[in-house]
């Protein structure tokens, strides 16, 4: 669907006319990311992160597929074949560093994309389905990134597999058999590595599929915008091509500079030296932490140290960690305010920034050792995290008095909207 004033795809070349009759794929692309998709004229740079996330997915799939041509998913060769990629394969170092840092870049971009959604209320009706699919994509990304991290079969790889599959053993009754089923053994071993390789190759394409659904559901109401006011007239929108293709192109340039800086000048800055030691099931590294993009959730996991009622501390930690993401699924219904954008929600805006600081603190704590005072602070930060979504958001959205909204997007941009005003009178 699109707005009535959106341009229609009109092929001029006879081949394209023929193609449009047989398989209107160019039409689909034109309407999805071309001149046929009308976008609010006022969207800011925070709206560029969706496109960047798509670019990251493409980078990961392209580098990943070629890396798989040189990698062996077997415990006897996995570590050595990773080093073979680094030392012997032509440009292998660049492909691997590009893939490893590409995962970090993907998460950085996705976090911006998610917090854009928190600030501007992008999850609210009529865009709930876009949000729900986005959370599904995030969960799939986490699974994919974790399994990819296991593949080089270094010390951090091995112990990541041990700890993360250990989370499932917390589940009462079926936990231990489930862990054995996931690992294909009693501890991570060849069966584990091999199946993770298979799934790590598969899941990005599943993500691609859900991304297509995500964009599809986006195109039904159209993009949101910083005012949160829905599009009313033609003067509120401009076509995606050329306007936002050009704008996205600019941020791609900026992104590539930062990404290139990591890949070429500090490729191991985000990694852990211990992963250059081959996996040793007899020896846990002194300080095991996940990659930085899992730190906030890891801090939540570790903040549970006491049993409560019938639940032991381990199960509580695991449940809280999953709940920290699953709570996002309910956000469209927890936030009852009809005003989308935090720009017009003075109270919510303050709590948004408190949440940002809280998540940054959790992130720092997730990377810190499991000692006091870190444990206590992460308990408080975890409590606040859930308080935000389950208590503060519902209460603020019912008691808050929002600022007056602009009449239309055009008015917000130009200070007046003569066309819409005369329409309204006429």
């Amino acid at each position: 669907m699109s707005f009535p004033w959106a341009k229609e795809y009109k092929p001029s070349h006879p081949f394209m006319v023929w193609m449009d009759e047989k398989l209107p794929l160019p039409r689909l692309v034109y309407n999805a990311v071309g001149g046929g998709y009308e976008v609010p004229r006022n969207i800011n740079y925070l709206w560029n992160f969706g496109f960047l996330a798509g670019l990251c997915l493409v980078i990961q799939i392209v580098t990943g597929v070629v890396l798989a041509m040189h990698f062996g998913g077997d415990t006897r060769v996995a570590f050595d074949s990773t080093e073979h990629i680094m030392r012997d394969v032509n440009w292998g170092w660049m492909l691997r560093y590009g893939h490893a840092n590409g995962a970090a870049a993907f998460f950085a971009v996705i976090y911006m994309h998610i917090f854009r959604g928190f600030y501007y209320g992008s999850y609210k009706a009529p865009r709930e389905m876009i949000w729900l699919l986005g959370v599904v994509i995030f969960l799939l990304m986490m699974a994919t990134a974790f399994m990819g991290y296991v593949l080089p079969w270094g010390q951090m790889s091995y112990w990541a597999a041990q700890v993360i599959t250990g989370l499932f053993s917390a589940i009462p009754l079926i936990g231990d058999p489930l862990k054995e089923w996931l690992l294909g053994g009693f501890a991570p071993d060849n069966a584990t590595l091999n199946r993770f390789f298979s799934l790590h190759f598969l899941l990005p394409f599943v993500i691609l599929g859900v991304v297509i659904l995500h964009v599809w559901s986006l195109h039904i109401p159209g993009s949101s915008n910083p005012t949160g006011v829905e599009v009313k007239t033609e003067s509120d929108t401009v076509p995606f091509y050329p306007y936002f293709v050009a704008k996205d192109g600019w941020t791609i340039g900026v992104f590539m500079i930062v990404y290139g800086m990591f890949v070429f000048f500090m490729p191991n800055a985000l990694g852990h030296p211990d992963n250059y030691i081959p996996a040793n099931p007899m020896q846990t590294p002194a300080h095991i932490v996940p990659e930085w993009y899992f730190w906030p959730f890891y801090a939540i996991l570790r903040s549970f140290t006491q049993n409560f009622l019938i639940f032991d501390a381990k199960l509580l930690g695991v449940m809280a960690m999953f709940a920290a993401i699953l709570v996002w699924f309910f956000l469209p219904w927890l936030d009852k305010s009809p005003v989308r954008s935090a720009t017009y929600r003075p109270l919510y805006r303050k709590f948004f920034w408190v949440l940002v600081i809280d998540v940054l603190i959790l992130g720092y704590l997730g990377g810190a050792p499991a000692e006091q005072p870190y444990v206590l602070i992460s308990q408080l930060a975890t409590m606040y995290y859930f308080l935000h979504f389950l208590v503060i958001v519902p209460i603020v959205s019912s008691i808050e008095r929002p600022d007056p909204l602009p009449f239309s997007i055009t008015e917000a941009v130009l200070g007046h909207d003569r066309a819409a005003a005369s329409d309204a009178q006429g």
Partner: protein
Amino acid sequence: MANEAGTDAPAVDGEGVRRRDFINIAAVSAAGVGGVAVVVPLVAQMWPSADVLAESSTEVDIGAIQPGQAIKAVFRKQPVFIRNLKPEEIEAANKVDVATLRDPQTLAERTKEGHENWLITMGVCTHLGCVPLGTGEGESKGEFGGYFCPCHGSHYDTAARIRKGPAPKNLHVPDYEINGTVVKIG
């Protein structure tokens, strides 16, 4: 509606089972049962394979382990801690009031009769599966003189019982038997 008009069975007030209904249910059921049957091998292939299960016992010579020393052996590709407890460590373990423990067990319940000095446990933290420290010379033994898991800070005592930190259970005691100086695990 169009195919209902073309049915060959006479409609008796819309009641009774027509041949077409029977064929429908039979076909869908057969396909459903077949579909479920195909899932079984697809799911079951994930369980530990026969060669993994075959490596299910290990023999270790413990004759050279002096009191106060511990070694790590390998059982099912996981570490096993074999520790020769000193008399004061046994005493420390027995002094604890079992009722105060998170996972109440006495040292006697965790060792074999006549071999109370041999503490044989899995070297797998019951929290998330890291290998606790405390077997090697100079490694941290935690606040209770047993083992210390560096991953999330679980402390185990000299009977390898959980005393502090997030782990829910004592270090698991595998099935084993001691014959002279040889211990057979599994």
